């Protein structure tokens, strides 16, 4: 069964005329890792907000169509009811710290306290999240004393502690240095093993090719394609949408290295070396 169902969703921000989401329809299966790509103004963030219920409830504006997450119709429920099902993490780690907590440990408790969860369960959830995000060592530090990468992991932990079945990551590494980026990608890889459905908007195409099950390409509010990385990155018209295929794919294209079974270009080093090995 599809865990996310998006049907003909349209959306405009208040006081604007442009449809930022223009008649989008797609399904995501439980446990899938979906990459979301497109140019800066394509509507990636807005789509992320729409899945988490911030569009339309937080931003208001004009809305049409239907989004179902975990069986819940977003339009009919408040963000507070949606957030136990859908977690959202975005770019700026600094602004995701609540500012009202003095330690990482308490920071992670924030959402759990708001939802009135019992203290014993809160403690368990915090411990689990600390472990999963590899931040147990910094649990007594003030959130604002952390590096960007650490802060972003705390942000993810705070959301994961609510046990959402869907996690949305909107360019979680775009404001991080290379080391922070590496840290965050490592924990995201861990999360995929937990069976949680992940949607990640990201500019780092090479990373996306390796991790994701399917990639959603959007352009000016419209869905262009939704397919496996191999198929999607083998498209000839990627540049029209402001996307540059992964380095591996581009090399394979210029060298003419294709997968013999389906004629697609490799998207990861592993695939490439397999195809090359076959050649030799």
């Amino acid at each position, binding site marked *: 069964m599809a865990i996310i169902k998006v049907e003909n969703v349209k959306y405009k921000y208040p*006081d604007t005329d442009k449809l930022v989401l223009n008649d989008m329809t797609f399904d995501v299966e439980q446990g899938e890792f979906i990459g979301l790509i497109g140019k800066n103004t394509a509507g990636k963030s807005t789509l992320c907000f729409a899945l988490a219920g911030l569009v*339309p409830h*937080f*931003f*208001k*504006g*004009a*809305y*049409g*169509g239907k989004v179902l997450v975990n069986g819940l119709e977003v339009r009919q429920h408040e963000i507070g009811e949606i957030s136990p099902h859908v977690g959202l993490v975005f770019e700026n780690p600094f602004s995701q710290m609540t500012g009202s907590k003095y330690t990482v440990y308490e920071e992670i408790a924030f959402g759990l306290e708001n939802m009135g969860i019992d203290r014993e369960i809160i403690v368990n959830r915090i411990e689990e999240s600390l472990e999963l995000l590899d931040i147990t060592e910094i649990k007594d530090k003030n959130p604002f004393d952390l590096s960007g990468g650490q802060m972003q992991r705390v942000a993810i932990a705070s959301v994961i502690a609510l046990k959402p079945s869907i996690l949305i990551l909107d360019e979680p590494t775009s404001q991080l240095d290379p080391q922070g980026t590496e840290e965050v990608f490592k924990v995201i890889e861990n999360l995929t093993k937990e069976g949680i459905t992940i949607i990640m908007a990201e500019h780092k195409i090479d990373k996306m090719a390796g991790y994701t099950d399917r990639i959603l390409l959007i352009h000016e509010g419209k869905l262009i394609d939704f397919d496996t990385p191999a198929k999607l990155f083998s498209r000839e018209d990627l540049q029209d949408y402001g996307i540059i295929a992964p380095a591996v794919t581009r090399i394979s294209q210029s060298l003419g290295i294709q997968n013999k079974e389906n004629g697609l270009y490799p998207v990861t080093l592993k695939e490439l070396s397999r195809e090359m090995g076959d050649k030799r």
Partner: protein
Amino acid sequence: MSKTSIWTFKLSTAAIALIPAAIGINYLGKLFAGLLKLPLWLDSIGTVLASMLAGPIIGALSGIINNIIYGITVDPISTVYAVTSGAIGLVVGIMAYKGWLKNVKTAIVIGLVVGIVAAIISTPLNITFWGGQTGNIWGDAFYAFLVSHNFPVWLASFGDSFVVDVPDKIATVIISYFIFRGLPNNFNTIFRGSDKIEEL
């Protein structure tokens, strides 16, 4: 812009999150004014901006909480004026909603009204708590002058607050007005509270 009541009590999260920012801006205004040795306090720019952005209730809350926080972290005396700060937020919010944010001239009127209201509210506080003075040297000199010329205490005290508050509040509202005008438009919509969702 669809107009909603200014007295909406279900305050949006964005509006609530604006309060700490407003208090921080108040604090910075005061620091910068001190740094530049300006003869004004300019310590309510955040409160005034919050009122312009999110209405009188958020403005009033920003003012009240501002003084409570300042009271418990720096100077207990300032807690007494929480009422005054709250009123400043309230007045700016209401006047902004009634269309007084059109241009600099009307903004000056807001500043004048705010200054007078602040002085009116501070007067009974000053009389009750410290016999009518403000602790501001110029204001208190004026107070002494009035009292020694046989003006009643309440009038002298009002005069004391008036000379201190009115110029400061006019400057504060003008500065806030320019900052408010300079904000990108999409900044403002989320603070305004419950705009209805249109169907597409």
